């Protein structure tokens, strides 16, 4: 802002072909903005004097393009009012890519005179808004955010659950206490270790000081481990936390005895440092997975249902879908997904791709049962709800999933597997050491105990406990950077084990949305038609606009619901609307410049993803035979299979058949990777050994999947498998390494050659080597 006289336009960041606001690639014919929305947003940002945003942001990938008609929701019911008239509202804000976005949102809102507080949490995507004045201002502020290109949704309890992380905070708290304790005990302990000329009284004072700090630290900061160990014990299982708990508590107990005896050394320093190290590993592990969970929650919140309920007096208002009861009526707009099961009094045209996998929209006669999850492709209609959300078909599907999910919970991770054998052996060796010295060598029981505790301390699986989580943290981070979210803790291990892949067609192998088939249409006519299409939210109109995004809105365009668009004499819509007989409805739009002009036909199809053949080839190269399993008709499935290079395919598979197919594969000893996006895939996803869902999948599929691909396309799937396999190899190496350390150190400890200081050093060095090895997991 040094030179205010520079003209407005020249000041915009001028990269060769990127939109000045959202950064999307521009067609050669376009000026500086990809659409009018971006132009308006750029003007708005400039007008507020916030254009520093464009210099500060780190990424511009087109995510910030304002939608032509943002899906508005009524925030009024969500607004809370304080006693002094201050209104507050919590929102979930999507589209934040870097710190500059946080700054832009906060400053743009703060520039409004009545806004008292606008604070965005970058990691939870939560916007807290407080303002003075009318509640209606809330909706205006939401519109302001939409104009800037950010998408806004109510901050629902589901968001809250996903982002509220009491357990994570408890871990950080424990880490802080352990680090404090370890550092202060170390201060005292070093004095004892080096101060050999120290008098007995001074040493006793030092021991008591160490106990005073060390004991509470061990008791408080170790709670996460003790709880987990106790839970495992109650369930009759063995886990690493048991070895950790016993090692730490035995060391602390021994040290306390030595304090009372005023022995030469205590080992509170080792116990507290060990806790701090292990807790740091846990905190990192959790932070990495929390990011993935929050990204999923963000997607879910945007899809979360508000429906237009029609009240008895005929007025409509937006309410959460969960609150609608059977018998009530909701208005379904064009392009809107049905949130509830119901019936319509009129004929409807619905896209049921998400439920059945059919790629063409289907006509439903009046009174037919309409499934939740379908998308309205025809005229707006009134849906008579037949079942509330909790009893509807979506809820039934969710219950089916829960049952299938439980079988997945039985998966034993490699770390637990190691613990199962390791922990009993380690404890048995420690006990044997004590008996050997006490009974066998007739040593003092204290001396025998010191040696036994040394064994416990060395076998305390610090390296082992860090071996697997460290690899997972690094691998999850590497995948996150590539747009792959890992939602479950054992997903990587299961992904590495997968030995065959089952793919869904619609929305997975294909883009799952209509794309214009180029048939040599006149570019000028396409331009004019796309300009009219800009006025509509109909999926086909949107597809037409995507084919020619630079077309400006044709003035005076009027939408005739369920039929088409009209601007003067020009018409764009269904064949019937444009008086063209002999062409069935479906994925077709017709354009006529005037009543007597020749009609131009635009056909649409669900196109194969550009990288699908390559991804299939990569999967095969990784040793995963690929199958195609779809609910669509044989013709469409066969052509998609041939185009993408898949030999084995099956069409007209309903959700039950899909899940059964996965079960059959599992019974045959295979470990199938299922990739799907629809509600019809959810049961199969849950049943599969490991499940992935592509970008734009339905919420049900995303919550069921272990792995969510955030970027368009399937290219990252083979990449994810490669990273997972590499992580698995590294995890095994790490476990092997930690065990090898023990094999050398334990005999030395049994022989009484190791004092606790050496034991602690050995332990720490093994942890460092294991962590260093884990860092290699990030490189694919």
């Amino acid at each position, binding site marked *: 802002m040094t030179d205010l006289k520079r003209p407005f336009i020249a000041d915009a960041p001028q990269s060769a072909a990127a939109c000045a606001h959202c950064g999307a690639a521009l067609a050669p014919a376009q000026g500086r903005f990809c659409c009018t929305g971006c132009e308006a947003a750029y003007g708005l940002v400039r007008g507020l004097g916030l254009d520093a945003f464009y210099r500060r942001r780190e990424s511009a990938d087109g995510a910030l393009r304002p939608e032509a008609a943002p899906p508005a929701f009524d925030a009024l019911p969500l607004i809370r009012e304080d006693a002094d008239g201050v209104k507050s509202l919590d929102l979930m804000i999507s589209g934040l890519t870097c710190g500059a976005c*946080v700054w832009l949102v906060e400053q743009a809102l703060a520039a409004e005179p009545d806004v008292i507080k606008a604070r965005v949490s970058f*990691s939870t995507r939560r916007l807290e808004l407080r303002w003075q004045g009318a509640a209606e201002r809330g909706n205006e502020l939401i519109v302001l955010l939409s104009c800037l290109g950010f998408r806004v949704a109510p901050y629902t309890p589901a968001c809250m659950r996903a982002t509220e992380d009491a357990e994570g905070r408890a871990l950080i708290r424990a880490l802080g206490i352990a680090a404090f304790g370890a550092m202060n005990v170390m201060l005292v302990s070093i004095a004892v270790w080096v101060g050999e000329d120290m008098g007995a009284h001074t040493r006793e004072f030092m021991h008591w000081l160490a106990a005073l700090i060390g004991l509470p630290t061990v008791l408080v900061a170790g709670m996460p481990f003790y709880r987990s160990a106790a839970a495992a014990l109650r369930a009759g299982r063995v886990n690493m936390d048991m070895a950790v708990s016993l090692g730490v508590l035995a060391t602390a107990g021994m040290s306390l005895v030595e304090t009372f005896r005023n022995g030469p050394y205590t080992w509170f320093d080792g116990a507290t440092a060990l806790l701090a190290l292990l807790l740091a590993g846990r905190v990192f592990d959790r932070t990495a997975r929390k990011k993935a969970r929050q990204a999923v929650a963000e997607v879910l919140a945007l899809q979360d249902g508000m429906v237009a309920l029609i009240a008895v007096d005929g007025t409509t208002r937006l309410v959460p879908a969960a609150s609608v009861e059977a018998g009530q009526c909701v208005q379904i707009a064009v392009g809107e997904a049905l949130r509830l099961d119901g019936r319509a009094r009129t004929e409807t045209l619905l896209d049921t791709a998400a439920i059945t996998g059919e790629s063409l929209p289907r006509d439903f006669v009046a009174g037919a049962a309409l499934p939740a999850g379908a998308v309205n492709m025809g005229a707006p209609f009134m849906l008579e709800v037949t079942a509330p959300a909790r009893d509807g078909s979506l809820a039934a599907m969710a219950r089916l999933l829960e049952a299938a999910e439980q079988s997945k919970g039985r998966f034993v991770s490699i770390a637990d597997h190691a613990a199962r054998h390791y922990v009993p052996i380690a404890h048995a060796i420690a006990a044997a050491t004590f008996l050997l010295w006490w009974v066998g060598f007739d040593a003092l029981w204290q001396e025998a105990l010191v040696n036994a505790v040394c064994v416990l301390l060395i076998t305390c699986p610090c390296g082992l406990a860090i071996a697997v989580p460290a690899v997972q943290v690094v691998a999850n981070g590497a995948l996150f950077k590539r747009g792959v979210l890992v939602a479950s803790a054992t997903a990587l291990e299961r992904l590495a084990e997968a030995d065959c892949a089952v793919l869904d067609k619609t929305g997975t192998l294909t883009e799952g949305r209509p794309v214009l088939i180029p048939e040599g249409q006149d570019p000028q006519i396409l331009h004019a038609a796309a300009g009219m299409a800009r006025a509509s939210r109909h999926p086909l109109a949107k597809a037409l606009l995507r084919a020619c995004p630079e077309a400006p809105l044709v003035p005076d365009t009027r939408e005739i619901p369920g039929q088409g668009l009209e601007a003067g004499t020009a018409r764009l819509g269904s064949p019937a609307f444009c008086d063209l007989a002999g062409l069935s409805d479906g994925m077709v739009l017709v354009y006529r410049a005037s009543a007597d002009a020749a009609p131009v036909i635009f056909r649409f199809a669900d196109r194969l993803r550009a990288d699908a053949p390559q991804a299939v080839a990569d999967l095969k190269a990784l040793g995963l035979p690929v199958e195609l399993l779809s609910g669509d008709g044989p013709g469409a499935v066969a052509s998609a299979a041939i185009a993408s290079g898949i030999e084995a395919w099956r069409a007209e598979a309903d959700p039950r058949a899909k899940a059964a197919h996965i079960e059959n594969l599992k019974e045959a000893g295979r470990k199938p990777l299922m990739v799907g996006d629809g509600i019809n895939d959810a049961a199969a996803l849950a049943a599969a050994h490991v499940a992935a869902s592509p970008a734009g999948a339905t919420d049900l599929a995303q919550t069921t999947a272990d792995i969510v691909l955030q970027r368009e396309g399937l290219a990252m799937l083979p990449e994810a498998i490669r990273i997972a396999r590499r992580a698995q190899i590294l995890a095994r190496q790490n476990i092997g390494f930690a065990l090898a350390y023990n094999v050398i150190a334990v005999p030395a400890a049994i022989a009484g050659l190791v004092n606790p200081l050496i034991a602690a050093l050995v332990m720490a060095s093994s942890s460092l080597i294991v962590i260093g090895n884990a860092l290699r997991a990030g490189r694919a």
Partner: protein
Amino acid sequence: MEALILLVPVSLLLGALGLIGFLWALRSRQYDDLEGAAARILFDDQPGKDPPP
């Protein structure tokens, strides 16, 4: 030896102050949005708006 009588409680007190500060920061949710805080500190606030009455 006499120095220890003074220095040990002082060092413990200072350490405890730090710990209490950490626990307070955690409780007041300052650890909830580390990325956002890291980004926000780099940017200026926009001047020119009167504080609300």
